[in-house]
Structures are given as C-alpha cells and as structure tokens.
C-alpha cells in the first residue's frame, strides 16, 4: 500500500484516550497515536496485553470519546458527525469480536440474527427478500440453508465465528475491525476463518483493522502493521518492513518471543529481552521515517542508532 494514489479511509491523528480522567485511577490508554488506514488494505495491530489495541478499535468505532486528537472516516471527523452521517458511519464500520458466543444473541436463530442486521440497514423490503438475503450471507461465509433455523449454541467455535462475520457483513460495511477474531479457535479452524476473511476482502473491497496476538497470522494477512506499546505506536511499516526488518527494540523483542513450528530452530532460539524504562525518561520522541513508509518512535539519536543497528 505504498501507492500514493491510495485513498485514506481512516485517518487517526494525535489520538489520546484517558480512562477515569481526573480520578485516582486515571489511566492513559492511548497517547498521541497517529496513522492512516487506506481503502482496501489490511492494517494489522499488534502489541502486548494491555497495550491499548482494543481501546483503539473501540475508539475508532466511536464507542469511547477521545481526550485529544481526531479520527476521520471517509473524510469526516467521526466526533463531529450529525445524525444522518453518524447512522451511515455506524453501518459502514463494523466489528468482529474474539468471542463469537458473547457477541451473538443466544435467543435468536441464525436467520433472525442476520435478519436483524439486514433490517437495521434497511435492506429488506419483504419477508421473501429477507430470507433470500439471509441465505446469501450464509453461503458467503460457507454455511447453508440448514443452518438458518438453528441457535448459536448448536454451532462449533469456527462456525459461530462465521456467523459473527456474516452478522458484521449484513449491513454491507466498508470497514471491519476484527479484534482477535481467531484467538479462541483451533489451528485448523483459524485457517478456515482467515481464508474466509481474505476471500471476502477481495470480493467486497473491504478494509480491515486486524488486531491479533498471533504475529505469524498478522504478517500473513496484513499489508501494513502497527506496533503498540503502553498506548503508544512505536513502529509502523509494511508487513515485510516490520516483520523482517524491525527497528524498535520492543518490536524486536516481541518478534523474538513468537515460537516457530520448527523444533530445530525453536529449541536453539532465544528471546530478546526488552527494558522499557527509557520510554519514561521524559525525552520527546516522534515518529521518524527511516525509509519510505517505515516509521519508528524515537529521538534523533535513537533513530540514528536504530539505523546503525540494522546495518
């Protein structure tokens, strides 16, 4: 996605988010985060537990109000949208969750879960059309007519996640945030769901923000990757740049911690430790562009050092 012609679908500028502002348990979950997501790409977001990935996803969907900065969707600031524009945004941006069980209404049949989404978006003129659209959605995610009258608990984890995906896609979104959509699934089922996401993206020109712990999967699916640490974006680049030529010591440590399914390599391999204390030394750091499209959060001296380390 280095194409300069590519259109920015989501533009996040200097985003800061604070939980419990002004209280004793105040927590800055996101600090001065900036990046863009281009139309049609998959942007992967990685980082340790508590780094702010889910918070970022939810803020982009306008579920939290930022303390500072702005988020533009298709050119408009989501926090300044008027009623009609907002309703439009709500259907164009959807989320797929880690736990499909928790996100599906257990008292509705699959047909009604999907139908609800279709109704919401005003896509159904009559019963017959609703039924037809529900079937289309089921086929799209590799399920069939037989599944329509069943309830979520009658499905396996992978099938539930397919229903979750179908529900998100019912309203024909342009942008989908997938927050750890495969973490709870079996290895073989993970591959099914990931292939499905890739297929749907191609067919419907979807844009994804893909949040995951599994760095191999993120590398596999993403065009570009952002690395979050303690609420700050510390590195940003193409999947190849970040994965194969990491700059920030945190990214290097994170990548080194990923076990590879290759016993000879894995048993010989050591995890690089990371001492984050310098992040709190009070120095100002900025995103420095080290090569086209590859940014690292650093002071000028650190940037020079990272560059030297790479060669």
């Amino acid at each position, binding site marked *: 996605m280095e194409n300069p012609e590519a259109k920015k679908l989501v533009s996040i500028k200097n985003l800061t988010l604070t939980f419990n502002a002004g209280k004793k348990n105040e927590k800055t979950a996101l600090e001065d985060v900036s990046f863009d997501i281009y139309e049609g790409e998959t942007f992967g977001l990685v980082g340790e537990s508590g780094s702010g990935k889910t918070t970022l996803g939810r803020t982009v969907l306008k579920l939290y109000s930022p303390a500072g900065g702005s988020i533009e969707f298709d050119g408009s600031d989501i926090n300044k949208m008027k009623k009609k524009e907002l309703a439009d945004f709500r259907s164009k941006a959807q989320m797929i969750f880690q736990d499909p069980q928790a996100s599906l209404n257990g008292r509705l049949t699959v047909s009604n879960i999907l139908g609800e989404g279709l109704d919401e978006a005003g896509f159904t003129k009559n019963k017959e059309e609703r039924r037809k659209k529900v079937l289309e959605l089921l086929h799209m995610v590799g399920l069939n007519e037989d599944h329509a009258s069943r309830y979520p608990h009658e499905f*396996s984890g992978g099938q539930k996640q397919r229903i979750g995906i179908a529900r998100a896609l019912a309203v024909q979104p342009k942008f989908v945030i997938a927050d750890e959509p495969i973490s709870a699934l079996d*290895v*073989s089922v993970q591959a099914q769901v990931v292939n499905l996401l890739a297929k749907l993206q191609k067919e419907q020109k979807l844009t994804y923000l893909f949040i995951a712990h599994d760095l*191999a999967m993120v590398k*596999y699916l993403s065009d570009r990757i952002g690395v979050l640490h303690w609420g700050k974006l510390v590195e940003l680049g193409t999947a190849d740049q970040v994965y194969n030529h990491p700059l920030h010591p945190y990214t290097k440590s994170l990548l080194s911690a990923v*076990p590879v*399914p*290759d016993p000879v390599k*894995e048993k010989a391999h050591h995890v690089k430790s990371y001492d984050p204390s310098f992040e709190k030394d009070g120095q100002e750091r900025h995103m420095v562009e080290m090569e086209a499209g590859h940014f690292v959060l650093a002071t000028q001296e650190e940037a020079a050092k990272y560059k030297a380390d790479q060669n």
Partner: protein
Amino acid sequence: MQTPILEVKNLEVSFATYAGTIQAIRGVDFQLFEGETLAIVGESGSGKSVTTKTLLGLNAANATVKKGSQILLGNTNLADYKEKDWDQIRGKKIAMVFQDPMTSLDPTMTIGKQIAEPMEKHLGKKAKEAREAALALMKDVGIPDAEEHIDDYPHQWSGGMRQRAVIAIALAAEPDILIADEPTTALDVTIQAQILNILKAQQKKRKMAVIFITHDLGVVADVADRVAVMYAGKIVEKGTVNEIFYNPKHPYTWGLLSSMPTTSTALGSLHAIPGTPPDLLYPPKGDAFANRNAYALKIDHEKQPPFFQVSPTHEAATWLLDKRAPKVVPPEEIQKRQAYWQEHFVKEG
C-alpha cells in the same frame, strides 16, 4: 529400554448425557518417561483435557472410565481409584496447571498460604518452614520482590503473575509428573515466553516429567521431546518432536502443520482442513478423520486403521502406511519438511 513412570493402556472414557453416551476417549495408549516432556496436540474436543483429567480423577460426575482401562503409576492402576484414594496422588505425585489461573487459585487465601499448603500436607513441613520454602519457590518461578508479595491475594496480580503462582502451587509438593493444560494460551507472547522458560528450568532442576497440552505448534516445537497427536478421542500419531514435525505420516498431522502460515506463505494459499470433526455420540466405524481427508482410501471409511510402526519411536494410525496402499504426495508444506528430514536426520546408506 527405560521403564516409563506412567503408562496408559487402552483408556476409554465416556460421558452420559441427555442426548446419549458420548465416547470421548476411545482407546488411548501412551507412556511417559522420567524428565521428558510429552506434548498432546489436536483438534478442539479431541479429548486432550479429558485424557489428562482422568489421570487425576478430575472428570465430571457424568464420566465413566471403562473397565479394562489402565493408568499405571508404578504398580498401581489409577483407573480403579475411588475418590478417597486420589488425595495420595493429586498434587503429590501428579500436579496440574490449567489455562485460566483464576480457576485454580482460591481468591480468599493469600498466595503464600496457597503455595505452603501442599508442602504442609504432603511433605510434612511445619508452618514456618513451609512459608520459607514457599518464598523460595516464588523466587524460583520468577515472582519479583517475593517477600513483599507473599501475603497478596490473587486479584491483586496480573494474569502472567497469577500463572506463576499456579505453577508454584503445582510444584510445591514436588510431584513426579506435571500436567500443563494450555498454560500459556491466555497470555501474550512475551509473557508466554517467560512462563515456558520457567517451566523448562523447573522441570530440569526437578527431573520432573511434563505432559503439555497446547494447540500452538510453535510452543510444541519449543517444549516437547515427544508428541502425541489426538483426533476424535484417539491418538492418531506419536513420535519424537522431530519425527512429528519433519516426517509426519498421518494426514491429520499434515493438515495441522500446513494450516499455520510461515513467513513465506502467500495470501490465499493457507491450507485449511475442511469440515468439522465427527459427533462422538456416533463415532464413525472407520478412521474418524476420513470424511475430511483428501487422501482417504476406501478402507479408511470402513475400517479403523491400526498403528503402523514408522521407527521404534514413531507410529501412526493411517491406512496410507499399509504396504498395499497407493503412494501419495503429501501437501507442499509437508514435502518441504520431509526434505529437511532427509537432509538432516536420515543417514546415508
């Protein structure tokens, strides 16, 4: 030949449910040797947890261990144990670490007390002595400033720290066997790496045998000496970690290894095993994997394959290993692994 410290023979476990009898474990055999790590991998619902819970008598009330099943720990058959007998085994001979540390921690008791308790109970340590030992163990499992935190309650700790506490509790009575069921699945990779290192170091120090359940093949590659692959209540392949990763024979193992992306996998070309596993209310009569297996022979649908010996340490239950079976070409990812096997593990001549 080394004698195993634990030997499971023809283990069968079923569950009585509303809908009928679920045949969850359908004849499982394996051995465990001193100081080794045996990893159990396999599809969700294949019986990994039930198998290991049975070793501790921890199955749900609707479970039945079939007559004739053997779980031999030395000269005793644990399959015959009654509830009152298990106290001698649990925590003392065999201890367990679960995925969610909160399920194995008591929220109302300090962490120091929870670690000291098995020492008092099984090792006959006095309270003060046990507290000292608990403190040492907390340091062993990498809990920083242990002195300050010995009287903390579990809710005050992060997930990674809690899992260290659970490991400390499991190690407290110096068991010979540690069962770890997805101990790092809920943790991020950084914390996972720390926990795995702690487990490996403690295992070495104590010459403990470990049964490690995980669905992450990277973790298996890291920790395992030997691997058992389970599918639909049976072990379908077992071997040394190198045999399973570089020279796998069962199509299910092929499917598993091919469904993880490597750094060079092109988008859209990730292999996914189609379909879903069989319903164990009605186990199929042939190889349970047959209906998802692109390599299935006619006989796979009709008759249970026996184990075919690949090497003294490696066996797989697939008709593809029968002399009469046609030669098949495994998936590309597997061919690459086999090439590595040929080059590094097969001696000339």
